[in-house]
């Protein structure tokens, strides 16, 4: 039964993708000279810039933690990122996604090496097309590596959802809004650990497990793209360095 369904949804997906196909992804690292580390990601029609600063002195100082660094994330959508215009003031949704990004990234960073310091991650959404939080996590982990912050590994992230009874990978904006369920997952491929798991909508237990496995497959694909992005910056150095 599920096989028949899969065939059906191949034709049904609104942008012509296969059910287990990601949107085209482009990642570039080190795009902002003024930030300690940065990355730019295009995931489908999402366009996001992430800048990382630190580890640096934490202000206000009383909020710093005596035994480890504080990771601060800021998710912000530009007013022109969606139609109609969006107020640039931080909304309840922005605050929540900032927190979610922090939770997704924290297990990957050696925060205990920088007591009392702060590491700031600023994600700016220039254009939004569904799944911005997952794209933000992807770009932020590349930017953190680019900033020279010690990490346990990269974090990759993508969403899985259900629309018209079919399970599909990497939801676009339309699928996100019209679908029956949405399951964003952040995953550390090298440690095989899930660092973020959110869900809205209704899934049966079997469907949930299918979704999670599909999401982990998707994260593994994204991981390879992140790797390439980081390697591209040093392509030259890899060949010519011998001292």
């Amino acid at each position: 039964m599920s096989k028949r369904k899969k065939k059906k949804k191949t034709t049904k997906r609104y942008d012509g993708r296969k059910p287990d196909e990601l949107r085209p992804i482009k990642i570039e690292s080190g795009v902002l000279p003024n930030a300690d580390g940065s990355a730019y990601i295009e995931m489908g029609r999402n366009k996001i810039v992430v800048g990382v600063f630190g580890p640096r002195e934490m202000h206000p100082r009383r909020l710093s933690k005596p035994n480890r660094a504080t990771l601060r994330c800021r998710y912000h959508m530009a007013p022109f990122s969606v139609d109609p215009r969006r107020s640039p003031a931080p909304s309840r949704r922005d605050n929540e996604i900032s927190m979610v990004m922090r939770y997704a990234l924290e297990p990957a960073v050696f925060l205990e090496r920088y007591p009392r310091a702060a590491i700031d991650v600023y994600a700016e959404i220039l254009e939004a097309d569904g799944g911005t939080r997952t794209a933000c996590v992807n770009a932020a982990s590349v930017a953190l590596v680019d900033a020279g912050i010690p990490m346990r590994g990269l974090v990759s992230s993508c969403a899985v959802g259900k629309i018209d009874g079919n399970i599909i990978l990497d939801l676009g904006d339309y699928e996100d809004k019209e679908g029956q369920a949405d399951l964003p997952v952040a995953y550390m491929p090298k440690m095989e650990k899930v660092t973020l798991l959110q869900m809205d909508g209704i899934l049966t237990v079997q469907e949930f497990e299918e979704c999670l496995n599909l999401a982990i497959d998707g994260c593994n694909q994204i991981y390879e793209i992140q790797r390439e992005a980081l390697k591209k910056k040093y392509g030259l150095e890899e060949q010519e360095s011998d001292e």
Partner: protein
Amino acid sequence: MSTRFENRDLVIPGDVLFEGRIRTGDNTYRHEGKISASRVGLVNYSREMVSVIALEAGFSPLSGDLVIGDVADIELGRWLVDIDTSTNAILNVPDAIDAPFRSDIVMPDILDVGDTIVAKIVDMDRRKTPILGILGRGLGKVNEGFIIRLTPSKIPRLIGKRGSMVNMILNQTGCEIVIGQNGRILINGRTREQEEMAVSVIRKVEREAHISGLTNRVQEYLKILKEEKKNE
């Protein structure tokens, strides 16, 4: 014994470098018996250790480093100095004026907020905060010159083997150059041309730090610059 990469391969955080008994060097960590990289860089396998030469890294202070910083704040009996570390460094009064702190000392008269100093890290305290000292030759408040910045990971190339690179730049340009391990470089020349020459040479080192034969190329570059100046 199981090496996963060739020596000098580019690795990314999370890449498993080695499985088995071996010491973990710089920028690596051990997790469940596997040794992985924690920064982007080039792997280095030696007989008893795995390490990664980081391509991106902030300044990690060590006792004995010469650094250049700005006074960020004044507290009772000490200055807080920004030296691009995760926490501000501390300069205590006895390490600045070689006398104990007394309440009649006017601290801003000695060093004020915004002053630039050349200092040595004399110690790290229990919380790993660097403690600075400005007693000694060449240390103290900076009154003239200007500062440029370089990635801290490229400072060793600018200094060269036993200071060969920096000495060459000093002799050829005639500028005074003080290199802070934290990536700030103080340049003070007699003329504008000398200073411009020093800056362009340092920028060349920055661009080509990873390519071998750097000292020779910089030497030629200096020659070309000098001839250009003569022709003008």
